[in-house]
């Protein structure tokens, strides 16, 4: 399949909206229905002794939400202190979480046909969090699997 023609995709009834974001230069997509909110950097309260993927706790309008640093989750190098992450608030198993990404892009409407299965050569760790790959002009975009991403023990 060729590079996705966004204009045609948007008009397809069976399309799904995806929020795109980058982590460590890699493009990711997340079904928009899972995303509750996108926020700028929030004050984080770190949690000593927690798993290293846990970036800390944020106060999201009076609710305490745990932030997961996707860089660490994906085994990428840490951000420098000047780089401010973006927070993507999701709901998973009835609880709100916050995913820290480097930047958040557009919302794309993609149909199931646009998503290709994970290439066999893909890194095992990444394959576990990927539901498939979409080819875009900027490069490949990984469709994030929330369930496996939030399973930190894996």
């Amino acid at each position: 399949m060729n590079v996705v023609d966004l204009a045609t995709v948007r008009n397809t009834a069976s399309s799904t909206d995806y929020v795109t974001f980058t982590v460590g230069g890699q493009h990711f997509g997340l079904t928009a229905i899972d995303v509750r909110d996108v926020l700028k950097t929030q004050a984080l309260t770190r949690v000593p002794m927690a798993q290293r993927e846990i970036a800390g706790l944020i106060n999201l309008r009076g609710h305490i939400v745990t932030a997961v640093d996707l860089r660490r989750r994906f085994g990428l190098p840490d951000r420098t202190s000047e780089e401010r992450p973006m927070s993507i608030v999701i709901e998973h198993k009835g609880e709100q979480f916050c995913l820290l990404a480097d930047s958040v892009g557009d919302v794309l409407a993609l149909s199931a046909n646009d998503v290709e299965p994970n290439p066999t050569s893909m890194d095992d760790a990444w394959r576990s969090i990927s539901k498939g790959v979409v080819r875009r002009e900027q490069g490949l975009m990984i469709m994030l699997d929330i369930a496996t991403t939030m399973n930190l023990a894996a």
Partner: protein
Amino acid sequence: MDDLISEFVTECTESLGLLDQEMVRFEQNPNDAGILSNIFRVMHTIKGTCGFLGLGRLEKVAHAGEDVLGKFRDGALPVTSEAVSLILECLDRIRTLIEALAETGNEPAGDDSAIISQLRAMAEGKAPAPAAAAPAAAPAAAATAATTTATDGGFPVAAELLEECAAAEGDFPVAAELLAEVAAAEQTAPAAAAPAPAAVAATPAPAAKAPPQTEARAESNGPGQGAQSIRVTVDVLENLMTLVSEMVLTRNQLLQLARANEGSPFVESVQRLSRVTSELQEGVMKTRMQPIGNAWNKLPRIVRDLANELGKKIDLVMSGEETELDRQVLELIKDPLTHMVRNSADHGLERPADRTAAGKGDVGTIKLSAFHEGGHIIIEIADDGRGLNAEKIKAKILEKGLATPDELSRMSEADIQAFIMKPGFSTAEKITNVSGRGVGMDVVRSNIEKIGGTIQFVSTYGKDSTFTIKIPLTLAIVSALIVKSRNDRFAIPQIAVQEVVRASARSEYRIETLKGAPVLRLRNRLLPLVDLASTLTVSDTPMNEGYVVVCKQGGSLFGVVVDSISDAEEIVVKPLSSLIKNTPFYSGNTILGDGSVILILDTNGLASRLGAGVKTVETANVVSETRKDVRNILLFKAGQGLKAVPLSEVHRIEHFDMTKVEYVQGQATIQYRGRLLNLATLAGSEGIRTQGHQTVLVFGSDENQAGLAIDTIVDIIEDELVVARKSTAAGLLGSGIVGGKAVDFIHTPYFLAEAATHIETSSNTIAFGEAA
């Protein structure tokens, strides 16, 4: 479900609990007509209402029960234990039916002819035959009752007559029940005020209420007195509580802002808002308050059944049932309390024969009391049973490998008894039906600590045991100390905090280390410390200055070292997210007034961390030299100047309770691991203290030991042991330099020899240092 049915279920659940209690009381005072008429009336009400609602099965069972009660009332039937058991069984059946009714909205199918015929036979005076069958059937009925949980959607309120309701319906449905409810709350109110208390009061009802039924009917005709309370579902209250908690947080935030902007025109409004919020919070909390008696009302029945089962005579005395606490807390302490009362009945109290042999009355007493103290509620469970046998506990500790004999030997009896609260410990010799299923006091303790409570106990072997539970009135809002450790802030619930001590190198309180483990000397006791920053692996450098938050957990004191104390704040505890729930040392989190999220420290977890730390200190005591010339040298104070002794020559460092010192032929001794340990002192030192604790160095081996009572331990450092100048003083080897300081070295063989000769020659007091 039909509204009428659900209301009926709620009321019956409540009145059955009371009936259980009343029956037990009735068995003890069979001549009390007041109690009997209460029981009779409640049973009658159930029967009547069942008929009204078309619940045939229930009606028949209740009817048969009522017949027996009627015979009691007429004096035609003696009140025997069998008869009471049968009535209780009948109540169990009713309860089972009501639970099924609560679940399905319909009466379950089934056959009650067995119990009905037993009851009929009993009523006709043919007691013996059914009596034999009754005890066998009772546990089964009780078991079914236990497995089904009552779906009590509303607040348990007074067991008013449903007929009243039905009669008043359309007019003002709630009025009658409300009157009853209010009256139940004020049990002391005159009988004329309302009819219900006679039926529901757990405390003895005044005799004046003898004919309550007629009053009830009369009262139900006068609903015009106005509603003084209404029935509200628990969900609404829970939701209100959450909202108010949020509001309190926002209020705190606003207050903080107002404080920062003194002249702002908002300040005044914020203060008013603050006051109103406080009142609102108080008001909402009040709606959630319930008398603790609600958690107790099953206990008399449980104790009675236990007493029968175990062949004991037990008197359960309860006081302070009216003490109120948050219903959430109430729910959470119900099980631990039941467990503890069972424990007292099963393990605490002896059999009548054993009691008589021990010179006690054959009836054992379990006293349950509750009262308010500060923002807490105190519950005491006391029994005059056999107390805790420290020797038995010791054996068990060794068997389970929870401590080494060495560790045990330096523990006080209270320390050893405290082991019953430790995980993996249960003293029950045989597993009875009642308790001893491996879940012991540690479960009780952790359940109580989970809700921010503490549990302590005092027990005298052979005499009594008293358990004291201290729990917060409410869970939603707790006051906490906000502490800072490096760049992180944490909240420590104030219930765990005893005091805060400022520690610095120059002040009276100094943080010292015993082989790497930090300790603080606090009024004659060594307080083990947990350095928060290093415990949370935030920093490697241990602190020697800062604040020590002295916490109490599971009966032992320990200190948490933090950089500073920022504030004390009321916080709303929120549960941890699933991702960090399993992280040690946190019990929850909250949002502070300034909007930042803060973690709440779990002092229990920190204390358990300490267990590992303490162990390292103890093993360190017997560490011998590792490098050739450099040795571990213990520096201590006893009289003028520093004293030193190679750690390898110190068998143990003990911390004795000096009130246990005994004088044998003028020589101070202390019982130590089944032997008498001579205590010596050095000239110029404090000598043997007569009270409190004192550190004692124990020299020698198990065969020949000597103790040296010292003032304080200064440090353990690694250095070469070089005696520069020989000493002629007895007990001193000479002096030298250790860690840059001049010290006198102790000559341990001298003390050992003295101790040995003392045994043989029984000489008089040996004052070392002066002897030569």
